């Protein structure tokens, strides 16, 4: 029987708990989802450069740059929340989670406000009613770009916004659980995978901001 125990291999698998591995695998599929959207945008823009505007012409870059800063800050607060629970600091966890929620919600709010501003200038996703004019230009000025501009912009930023909103919702749930004392230094999986998702959403936004607003 000794040989049997000697032959007994250690438990197979990775030294990562299921939830964390599952989240990484899920994020892989999210990468493909945004690759599909961004790839379509790149193809359409290369095929029809005339259908897209110059950066800053229609879109409000300074406002969104500020919003990008807010989202990056929310990633910092998320890291702070994780660092707090690593030290078993319940109060710190709740404080930083709340900060992340507020920053995330602020980001979505600014984006919604930006949408209404853009739509009032005729920058809409609907092909038949698209008539975007330059920012600050008089009513009836020359139309900038074409329907693909509006459609790709709202689809890409909209899906990102939906991801942030889902993230905020999940953060609220995490905070609720944190207030009930569900997490400890030895049991912080929920906070960690929440952080993974949140940083991913943040990273996608930096890509989107560069591609949609700056280039």
């Amino acid at each position, binding site marked *: 029987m000794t040989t049997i125990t000697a032959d007994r291999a250690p438990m197979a698998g990775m030294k990562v708990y299921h939830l964390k591995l599952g989240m990484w695998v899920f994020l892989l599929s999210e990468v493909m*989802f945004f690759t599909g959207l961004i790839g379509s945008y790149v193809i359409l823009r290369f095929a029809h450069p005339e259908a897209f505007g110059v950066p800053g012409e229609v879109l409000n870059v300074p406002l969104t740059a500020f919003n990008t800063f807010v989202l990056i800050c929310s990633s910092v607060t998320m890291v702070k929340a994780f660092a707090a629970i690593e030290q078993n600091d319940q109060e710190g966890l709740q404080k930083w989670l709340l900060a992340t929620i507020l920053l995330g919600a602020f980001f979505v709010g600014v984006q919604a406000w930006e949408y209404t501003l853009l739509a009032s200038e005729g920058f809409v996703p609907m*092909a038949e009613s698209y008539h975007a004019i330059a920012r600050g230009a008089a009513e009836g000025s020359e139309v900038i770009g074409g329907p693909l501009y509006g459609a790709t912009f709202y689809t890409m930023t909209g899906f990102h916004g939906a991801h942030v909103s889902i993230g905020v919702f999940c953060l609220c749930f995490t905070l609720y659980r944190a207030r009930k004392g569900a997490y400890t230094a030895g049991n912080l999986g929920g906070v960690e995978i929440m952080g993974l998702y949140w940083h991913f959403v943040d990273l996608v936004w930096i890509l989107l901001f560069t591609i949609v607003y700056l280039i």
Partner: protein
Amino acid sequence: MSTTEKDIASAVDAGGQHDHHEIPWIRKYVFATDHKMIAKQFMFVSLFFLVVGGALAGMMRFQLGFPGQPMPGAGILPDAMMAPTPNGAIMLPEFYNSLVTMHGTIMIFFAIMPLLVGLFGNLLIPLQIGAEDMAFPRLNMASFWLAVPAGMLMLASFAVEGGAAGAGWTSYAPLSTSGEWTGVYLGQQLWLVSLTILGFSSLIGAVNYITTVINLRAPGMTWFRIPLATWSLFVTAVLILLAIPILAGALIMLLFDQTIGTGFFRPEVGGEPLLWQHLFWFFGHPEVYILILPAMGITSEVLSNRARKPIFGYHSMVLALISIGFLGWIVWGHHMFQSGMNPLLGTSFMISTMAIAVPSAIKTFNWLGTLWKADIHFDVPMLHALSFVSMFIIGGLSGIFMASTPVDIYIHDTYFIVAHLHYVLFGGSLFAIFAGITYWFPKMFGRMMNEPLGKVHFVLTFIFYNLVFFPMHNLGLQGMMRRIYDFTQYDFLQPLQPMNQFITLFAFALITTQLLFVFNFFWSIFKGEKAGNNPWKSNTLEWTVPSPPPHGNFAEMPTVFRGPYEYSSPESDDDFLPQTTPPREGPGPSSGVPEPTPTPEGAEA
């Protein structure tokens, strides 16, 4: 052998203890989290959809065999589908378009894919790697309960005004972008919504499978000791994980085009219809391998067991699975040779497509090598597995025709394509599904399926199947286009009428034959001969537990000492050697023969 029996006895005991608190009926049979129950749920639902898809095919075949003639019994269908005449109801062209679309969609997404991935993925992965369940049992339940409403939406689209989607299962833009072109408005949108929901269901299933295979393997179950069925399902799950999000993005963009009026794929406002084709096939080609890889895994399992020989070239089988999975990503353009794509690009897609013949041939020759000089048992699962191999060869060879850009100009969008895809999807995947269901039926229900009835079903299905689909190669080469409502409108196709009638008659025979399987299936659940734990004398872990396995599967964590296919091993007195058998101490009976020493690292092969 006594250890195995003891294990089983203790498993039964532990099974009893597990169920201390009786699981409520609704959690056991409806909102179940047990992977075996979810597998059965997927099986019943997708077999239902298989029947629906077959009925749609039967109606199409009637129209092609007897174009413009009243269909018997069609009077009960609404006037939007069948035009009533004094002699009976005649099929409308719009309804034919819906039939083509929905037959493809239902068979691919709601029958074959959930049977291979939902049924066998759920049933086999935890059992074959020695896990008590999936990594995320509740996500698993969610995966099934998202698939059900998706299927209901798809069926409901037949009842809405304008009928079900009619732009083909590929839903090419601009045909699909507006109801102006197809006459289908809401149906086309329901199609998109349904597939988006189903995609999400597949996606969370894939996350579950991948996590489970990576993290939940029993001690000693190294990567190269995993049975090929689980290997193929793992590669399939990776393909699903990465391909479905691309489809989801494309579906949503098309939905926006249809509903809020964006212009992604609408050329009249500056959009790119070709972009849809690229996105769809970037998903669609991996999808083709999602539909065949698990079938290959099931076949490997059955062939090796029923030939009582180790699978020939286990490592090369795994590597071939992985390379098919990889090559599947760089060949999508071969669906688009005639789309106006740059011919130079077409050539590169032709070369990468033909490269897939290499891993496919490795698998085929390995199957043949497994059968070489083997003690072949012609049981029902084996017969189906053998016909998988032979039909896959025919389907694979006709695939080479289409992969050649110059030949494809001639046969693109003809019945040659229809013949090819049915040789791989029906002759390939569906025969493997029959093999898998008959092989693992005792594990699912604790009873064997009826053998003589199964053989009759197999023989008739095999003959009728070939009589239906082989002549389609000929129809295609003579120029008959696929998806055509009435080919007799072309003079040059009218001589094909007798051949079409021949196909239609045997298609009805093929559909009728399936009643034998349905009867055998249900009869055997209740009246079949009781099966032991290991009726096929198999080595893999699922056969070490009772049939059906208790909740939690393994009474105690199994330890794996060897690969899954050690049949007729000189090390064993019997002709099989379960993966849980520890290595023999001291010199074995065949000490003269240099014998590989099994180690936990799986270095023996």
